[in-house]
């Protein structure tokens, strides 16, 4: 049987030779890796030679639309990018909701593999079979809104554009890729594009996408539409965006990292809580491609010193990173800093955490006003945070020290700064204080791309107390966390491969995915088969990382999490001790069938058919 839904082709473009080639893949490949993250990880796993410089021409940038991309599945339009990360030296993926994934499939390709390095600033133009590497001299130095505008004027309003900002050009290890004001932010994949002299990927696709069972697919879509509309989270997300649970995380749970993880309750949290700001600043709802549960908000500042700011935001993670983590309670300043991150092409999480880190260093006298050029202090956050973002993106002054994230900054600064650098594997953590959520702390360590809330999504089971088949999950306990995290990691690999937004995982538990996949592709899967694919994808990332020498010794939690208990609030006194960390890691390795050093065994790889 010929599989439907897929285009059946992967496009490889060599920027050095400007040659391209579309290779077909068969049903076996689809059954093994599904699509999206699975395809992207496979490309990087097999394409990047051992020891390759992440910012050298040998690195491979992969982009792949999920199985659902381009089809009417609510919230199912996500696209995966992957490469060897310059921030972590590991195989890192970053997923975004921009329309470039579905467009790639309409152009006739399920995945894109970009290798080599263009001689001079270039952009990649794909219009169905027409593939060109074009001159981007006039785009270099432009921001992530100017670039698509210029390219759309040139190639028509219908083209889709993914691009980098100045931060990516300047190889910032926290640089992001932007499409439709959405970002693949994490792990510095924007710098990989920059290192290839690739300013933008422009796609125009006009081919049909044909599902196996159109009527059935439309029926499923309608059923989920009704489920969404009746869900409380639909109403909350639509009104307040992803920040809707910021108050709860602060007041009820006390795990909102504040002032570089020195506190876990932000006393001024109401000022950045969307329940309070949304009515004033939100002028419109925004959605990713195919999203029928829109959490995007158009946030506009109409007056005052930040007048003119207009962003798709502010997301929960950014309210933390450029807000709480920097002690910044001025929501207009957070919005401006967010806008600058987007325009310059920097991950808001990494940028904010890095600034918060520098602010603590100034608090402790490790750096001074003379080093920075102005007061990078908690009481001056409103001015200082956007100012520092701008300097980082342009690598100006002290911004150059911070432009590659906390790990590199701590090393450059020295004087004991590393004690206050919060990261795992070189990636700055998202908005959960894992001292009060031990399993999520384990997930920060085991995440193949460094501290991440979405590789396992384990904040949800621990904060809510139940998930899937599990009840009574205690966030203060280490029991069974190794097994549970390994399972939820497999889950998440599946969601990223079908292209489904993780905010929908409560609606589409794994058992519900096979009917959707079948309606699109005609391929049948069981829940166990899907989880096996997830396990395969995670093991490939693990094997890649072990090959690059990134093993258990490099996974460990930073001193702040291991040594400083949470000082106050509902999670007061909690931390993760070294013993607890090691217990959880041991349990995890056993659950994975890996060595105690975090290396996938040859038997495991053989079992999963990974070569």
């Amino acid at each position, binding site marked *: 049987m010929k599989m439907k839904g897929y285009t059946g082709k992967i496009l490889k473009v060599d920027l050095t030779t400007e040659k391209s080639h579309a290779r077909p893949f068969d049903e076996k490949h689809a059954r093994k890796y599904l699509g999206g993250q699975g395809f992207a990880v496979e490309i990087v796993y097999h394409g990047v030679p051992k020891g390759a410089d992440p910012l050298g021409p040998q690195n491979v940038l992969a982009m792949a639309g999920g199985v659902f991309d381009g*089809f*009417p599945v609510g919230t199912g339009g996500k696209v995966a990018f992957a490469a060897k990360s310059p921030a972590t030296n590991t195989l890192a993926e970053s997923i975004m909701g921009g329309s470039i994934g579905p467009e790639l499939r*309409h152009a006739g390709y399920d995945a894109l593999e970009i290798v080599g390095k263009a001689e001079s600033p270039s952009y990649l133009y794909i219009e169905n079979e027409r593939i060109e590497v074009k001159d981007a001299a006039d785009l270099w130095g432009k921001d992530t*809104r100017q670039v698509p505008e210029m390219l759309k004027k040139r190639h028509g309003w219908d083209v889709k554009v993914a691009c980098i900002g100045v931060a990516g050009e300047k190889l910032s290890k926290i640089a992001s890729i932007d499409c439709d004001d959405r970002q693949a932010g994490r792990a510095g994949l924007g710098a990989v594009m920059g290192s290839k002299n690739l300013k933008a990927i422009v796609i125009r696709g006009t081919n049909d996408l044909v*599902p196996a069972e159109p009527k059935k697919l439309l029926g499923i879509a309608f059923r989920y539409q009704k489920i969404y509309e009746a869900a409380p989270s639909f109403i909350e997300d639509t009104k307040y965006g992803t920040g809707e649970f910021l108050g709860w995380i602060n007041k009820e749970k006390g795990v909102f990292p504040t002032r570089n993880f020195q506190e876990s309750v932000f006393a001024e949290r109401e000022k950045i809580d969307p329940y309070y700001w949304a009515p004033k600043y939100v002028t419109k*709802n*925004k959605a990713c491609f195919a999203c*029928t549960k829109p959490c995007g908000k158009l946030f506009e500042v109409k007056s005052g010193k930040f007048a003119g700011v*207009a962003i798709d935001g502010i997301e929960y993670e950014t309210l933390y990173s450029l807000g709480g983590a920097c002690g910044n309670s001025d929501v207009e300043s957070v919005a401006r800093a967010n806008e600058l991150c987007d325009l310059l092409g920097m991950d808001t999480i990494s940028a904010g955490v890095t600034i918060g880190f520098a602010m603590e260093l100034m608090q402790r006298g490790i750096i001074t006003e003379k080093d920075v050029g102005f007061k990078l202090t908690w009481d001056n956050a409103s001015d200082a945070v956007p100012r520092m973002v701008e300097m980082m993106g342009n690598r100006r002054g002290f911004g150059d020290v911070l432009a590659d994230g906390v790990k590199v900054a701590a090393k450059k600064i020295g004087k004991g700064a590393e004690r206050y650098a919060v990261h795992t594997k070189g990636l700055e953590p998202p908005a959960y204080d894992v001292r009060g959520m031990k399993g999520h702390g384990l997930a920060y360590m085991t995440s193949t791309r460094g501290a991440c809330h979405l590789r396992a999504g384990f904040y949800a089971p621990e904060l809510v107390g139940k998930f899937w088949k599990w009840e009574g999950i205690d966030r203060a306990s280490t029991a069974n966390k190794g097994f549970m995290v390994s399972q939820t990691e497999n889950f998440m690999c599946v969601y990223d491969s079908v292209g489904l937004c993780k905010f929908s995982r409560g609606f589409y538990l794994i058992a519900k995915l096979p009917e959707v996949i079948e309606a699109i592709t005609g391929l049948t899967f069981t829940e166990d088969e899907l989880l096996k694919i997830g396990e395969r994808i995670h093991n490939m990332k693990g094997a890649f990382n072990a090959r690059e020498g990134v093993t258990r010794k490099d996974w460990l939690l930073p001193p702040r999490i291991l040594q400083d208990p949470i000082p106050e609030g509902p999670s007061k006194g909690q931390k993760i001790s070294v013993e607890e960390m090691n217990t959880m890691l041991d349990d995890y390795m056993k659950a994975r069938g890996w060595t105690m050093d975090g290396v996938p065994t040859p038997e495991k790889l053989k079992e999963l058919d990974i070569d």
Partner: protein
Amino acid sequence: MVKMLVPYPENCTGCRFCEMACTIYHDGKINHADARLQVHRRGVKVDFPSVCTHCVSCGEDCCVLHCPVEAIKKKDGMVYVDQEECTACGECVEVCPFGVMRMEEKAFNCDLCGGSPTCVKFCPMKAIVYEEPKPEQYEKVKKLLAVEE
């Protein structure tokens, strides 16, 4: 009371689900160019749907009047293309003020799915509503379309 598609640009999130639902319903496949309505995204601030108004908005019946072979007709207030007579010259596509007359081998347009429009069913934000025509909403879309050129 005659009912038509009425666009509410202020509610549109730009998700384009309506376009996909439209083509899959009519053609069993997805191609945004064949959607009988079009969603436009212009930067971070502007998203809006453009729908076939069956020329109730201004009554000028552009496509009907401009068709050189009189293949476009009106019946019960609905514009439709006589597939036998259409020569695919593209004149109607050119003149449609909403950019929703589509062309494959022949011209075609919105048929309101026979009275239960699929796009309306799938729009979660009520950016397209099936109701009594509202000329002021059509004017909003015309203005937005004019800006992009």
